[in-house]
């Protein structure tokens, strides 16, 4: 590539970056506007006097602290259980053999393509029948069942570990549970990290699950953000919506910026190659 074409390319890409980031900048700008500035047209690009009180108002307007606790609880339950269970099952598929294993693995791969939302509503109806809605038990159940994609990731990783490791352990009298727990799991921290990030962002971002399974006062931040900020006339208070949304989105963005390399180069594509 010539110098000029490199420059041209860089400029085009910078313009794309600007377009992609502009919605987030607008969100931040709106979150700092006063009610008076919200009402004026045309809107200002940046608030003349940033109103940080929007953030405290946004926390007070909805049950922000409670909803955050609920979000974190659900994220914690699903992240730990999904990761452990997926590693456990992935180990089975990677290191053990049994009649029917091949067929089961095909079923596992097929379930990755299964439309999740199709099973979600009937699952809700079943949980409602056994009075387990408005509790965290559904997330415990989903977590224990593992995730097909993560099971696949763990299987791929465990399948690459040399056989001598487990043979040595067997000679030393170690059972397969011990081999998994003491030898394989500690080695798999790159996959564990990927699994934790993926499950956490999924749980944090999930809307339909909590909207369906939890009542308004025990719900998560995602649901509270989607419906919470309306005034007595039923109109949205957009500057508070923006302030709430900034606080809701921020943890995920910070996590992303810290783990950017892993996000971009690693697991987002590992399922297809």
């Amino acid at each position, binding site marked *: *590539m010539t110098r000029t074409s*490199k420059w041209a390319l860089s400029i085009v890409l*910078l313009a794309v*970056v600007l377009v*992609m980031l502009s919605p*987030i900048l*607008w969100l931040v700008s709106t979150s700092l*506007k006063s009610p008076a500035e*919200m009402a004026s*047209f*045309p*809107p200002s*690009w940046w608030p003349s006097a940033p109103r940080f009180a929007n953030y405290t108002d946004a926390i007070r307007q909805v049950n922000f602290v409670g909803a955050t606790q609920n979000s974190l609880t659900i994220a914690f339950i699903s992240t730990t259980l999904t990761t452990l*269970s997926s590693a456990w*099952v992935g*180990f*089975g*598929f990677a290191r*053990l*053999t*049994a*009649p029917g294993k091949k067929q089961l693995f095909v079923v596992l791969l097929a*379930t990755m393509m*299964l*439309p*999740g*939302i199709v*099973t979600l*509503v*009937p*699952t809700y*109806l079943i949980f409602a029948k056994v009075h387990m809605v408005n509790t965290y038990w559904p997330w415990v*159940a989903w977590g*224990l*069942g*593992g995730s097909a994609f993560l*099971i696949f990731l763990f299987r791929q990783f465990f399948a690459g570990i040399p056989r001598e490791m487990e043979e040595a352990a*067997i*000679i030393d*009298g170690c059972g397969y549970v011990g081999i998994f727990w003491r030898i394989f799991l500690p080695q798999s921290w790159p996959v564990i990290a990927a699994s934790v990030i993926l499950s956490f962002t999924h749980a944090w*971002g999930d*809307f339909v699950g909590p909207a369906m399974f939890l009542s308004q006062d025990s719900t998560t931040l*995602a649901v509270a*953000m*989607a419906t919470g900020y309306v005034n007595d006339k039923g109109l*949205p208070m*957009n500057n508070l*919506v*923006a302030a709430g*949304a900034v606080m809701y989105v921020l943890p*995920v*963005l910070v996590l*992303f*910026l810290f783990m950017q*390399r892993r*996000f*971009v180069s690693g697991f*987002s*594509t590992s399922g297809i*190659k």
Partner: protein
Amino acid sequence: MTSALTEVRRREAPAEAPSADRRKKPPSLRKARTFYLFVAPWIIGFVALTVFPLGYAFWLSLTDSDGLSPRTHFVGFDNYVEIFKDPLTLSSLGKTGLFALVTVPLSILAGLLLAVMLNQPIKGRGLLRGLIYLPAVVPPVGAALTFRLIFDRDAGAANGVLSGLGANPITWLVDPNVRYVLYALVLWGCGGSMIISLAGLQDIPRELLEAAQVDGASYWQSFTRITVPLLSPVILFQVITGVIGSLQSFAPLLLSSGSLSGAGTVPQGNYLYMIHVFAQYFSASRFGYASAMLWMLFAVILLVTLVIIKVSARTVFYTVEPGGQK
């Protein structure tokens, strides 16, 4: 050679007594039992949280259940017949098809274009990749709220730009314009597609492109003759997941009221199939009919996936056999 191995042999010996050669025996019973101990959580979860709900939904779809009254009547396949007669269902299916037809190719093309540009050796491309991918990690609710604010009639940036250009403001969040807001929202996340294409591009052996260059191929020629064919499995993957995602999309709900019970109030232009399903469940309480709609969606997704794979069989180029080991 101590306990564990010898124990395994001893235990299986009686069952396999007639076998002449012990060492060539199939995987031991004990190992098989351990395998099932390990995969049990997934099997139980799959049966309890996927197979059983699907079966339950199918049973419901054959009744007139409203979720409340204790007496439900078996109505056979009436609900399925109604799907083909209900104009609202058919039009929602049509809108979902249009939604997929617009957003899936555009996302893939935008992602591919960005991937090709970001695969060039330029300074700071790691950071550029990260920043362009960033919107794809914004949680759906956050993204939808952001777009609601940008396209707000009075306080939104879109109308701010229009008024700066001297044009009249547009009411974006109602019919007929709201569908463009939805398209923009989906396209904002094209960084996800970019990352997948980028991984595909990095898998293409450098020697192939260098050989083409030596033979005097232009950039465009080596792109269309080498890059695109080698990338076709990755593109096919994106088409399938994109179409499946579109058919299940409930993003319009987040753009509008943001509550499940408000599904019925989503503007007509964004009244996708899944929105109609939610409206039938949570507004109309027609559990039987809504369950039939879910099963229909399930069947359509299966069918569309098979058709895409069949049609693409002649155009997709695999370096290895699709089912084989890489």
